[in-house]
């Protein structure tokens, strides 16, 4: 990772009962690491009076109960913590949990895998190997309940979004762009390229928990044949063979 610009942290009012702690305006990889480290630290020991902590790619939103927390004290505290985060070390925190998620790559389940591999100048097999060997984390969850943004792949994977929208990818589609993956919870249009498909569903209202993935979770994709994935899709809880290890 290279530092393009010195990282700064801003603590900005977000509504009457919140602060946004922002490490960059753009999706800068170092700022992503900082936001993740900051969120992990807050989750481990939150100042009193916080009602909600939610991390986006390069920012963390903190909501507080004004009857329990003093606004200016909380702001000072968050500024100090953010400054310490910026000073480093800026490595991803050790994950507390790791998911292994079976995915069928290529062919009908990954119609753009060949294009992605060609853009990288490697074979489809090598592309799948790189995906399945990468040290990936849930960077944030959003746009739909439980739907993860997963990254980051190596710099070579900084693939642009497609000029033409993919009008519809199915639920469970694994799509890639800008060094990140999205695992779609429901059928969706996307400008990202579909490289695979999982039987794991990120949001099932009647399942406990309905939204199993958490920001910061480590993710490992495990290659599987499509008939295996199709069998896994039959299970009632739609976990699709996803396995969770609690690491600490």
């Amino acid at each position, binding site marked *: 990772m290279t530092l393009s610009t010195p990282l700064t942290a801003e603590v900005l009012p977000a509504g009457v009962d919140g602060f946004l702690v*922002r490490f960059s305006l753009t999706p800068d990889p170092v700022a992503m690491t900082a936001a993740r480290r900051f969120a992990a630290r807050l989750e481990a020991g939150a100042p009193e009076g916080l009602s*909600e902590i*939610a991390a986006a790619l390069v920012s963390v939103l903190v909501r507080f109960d004004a009857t329990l927390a003093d606004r200016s004290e909380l702001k000072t505290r968050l500024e100090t913590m953010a400054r310490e985060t910026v000073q480093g070390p800026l490595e991803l925190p050790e994950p507390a949990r790791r998911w292994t998620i079976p995915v069928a790559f290529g062919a009908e389940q990954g119609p753009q895998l060949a294009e992605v591999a060609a853009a990288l100048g490697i074979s489809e097999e090598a592309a799948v190997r790189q995906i399945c060997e990468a040290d990936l984390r849930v960077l944030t969850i959003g746009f739909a309940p439980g739907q993860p943004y997963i990254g980051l792949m190596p710099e070579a994977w900084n693939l642009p979004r497609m000029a033409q929208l993919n009008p519809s990818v199915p639920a469970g589609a694994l799509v890639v762009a800008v060094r990140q993956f999205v695992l779609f919870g429901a059928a969706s249009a996307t400008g990202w390229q579909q490289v695979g498909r999982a039987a794991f569903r990120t949001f099932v209202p009647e399942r406990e928990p309905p*939204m199993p993935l958490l920001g910061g979770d480590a993710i490992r994709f495990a290659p599987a044949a499509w008939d295996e994935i199709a069998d896994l899709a039959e299970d009632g809880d739609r976990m699709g063979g996803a396995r969770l290890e609690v690491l600490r």
Partner: protein
Amino acid sequence: MTAVQISRADGILTVQDMGRPGHLAEGLSRGGAMDRCALLEAAALLGVNAPCAAIEMAGAGGEFSVTAPTRIALTGAPMSATLDQEPLQWNASHLVLPGQKLRIGGARAGVYGYLTPAGGIATDPWLGSRAAHLNIGIGRTLAPGDSLPVGDDPVPERPAHGFVPDARFEGGTFRVIDGPHTALFSDEVLEAFYTTAFRRGARGNRQGIQLDADARFTSAHAKGLASDLIGPGDVQMTGDGVPYILMSECQTVGGYPRIGTVLPSDLPLVAQAAPGVILQPRRISLEEAIATIRSEAELLRDLAGRCAPLVRDPATIRDLLSYQLVSGVTCGDDLERV
């Protein structure tokens, strides 16, 4: 269990309560009633100590009946209501008996009306809330033939009450505070935004409401912004500079720049603005905004203090003679006889 039965649905009817907060990190927004104030008003009228699940009626109501005597409150956008053809006062609580037909017509002003039974709609909660969140498949729109369970009324003997709400059904000024993206807009754009009288646009639903004007409000920094956490009240500018106010069912993250955030206390006014109504943003400082903050418990207490027993005008009572008009009439010699 007592039930509210729906025999006709003219508007878009859903069950709504105060939503399910606390799941932003999992990508789930709070959801819940578009006009939270109307649920507080219903609780105050019914004399219950917390807002409960209601039927939210967008645009118009329908036809309802109950399986046991049920106190209800009618709040939010005023709609014409009758009970067996007798007009019912809006912003009031009433007793509905089995066999009676409660008819709720179209909104006379505003958008969202609320029918709240005193025990609350008691459908199965999901993540602590009964609110329908249609765009993620939670709950559904109500239809004729639906029967919704109702919880026990904690104060069934309480007489009908009414009150006069603050005006919020014809648009007007809504207050906005700066947010994390305000500095991405030039002073000229900010000035233009805050001097524009918008019309509530044609596009609007539980996710967001479009503000219509000839002018566009763009930011030079819009391109390449990392998507960020968003919430109800945020005023975001789409790619072509059209403002949308995010509402209760908005997504949790978004990539558009946001010029500011509407005060929570002014969101009911925005929600209740019908298409074409004038909405005028006013920028206030964070300090001013903080000074206006009231907890929902405080708001409920204030509203309860404004409710008074309904006094019916005898001229509007058709079967006047069936009422016991005077009680406690005696021969006048009781004191002497004691």
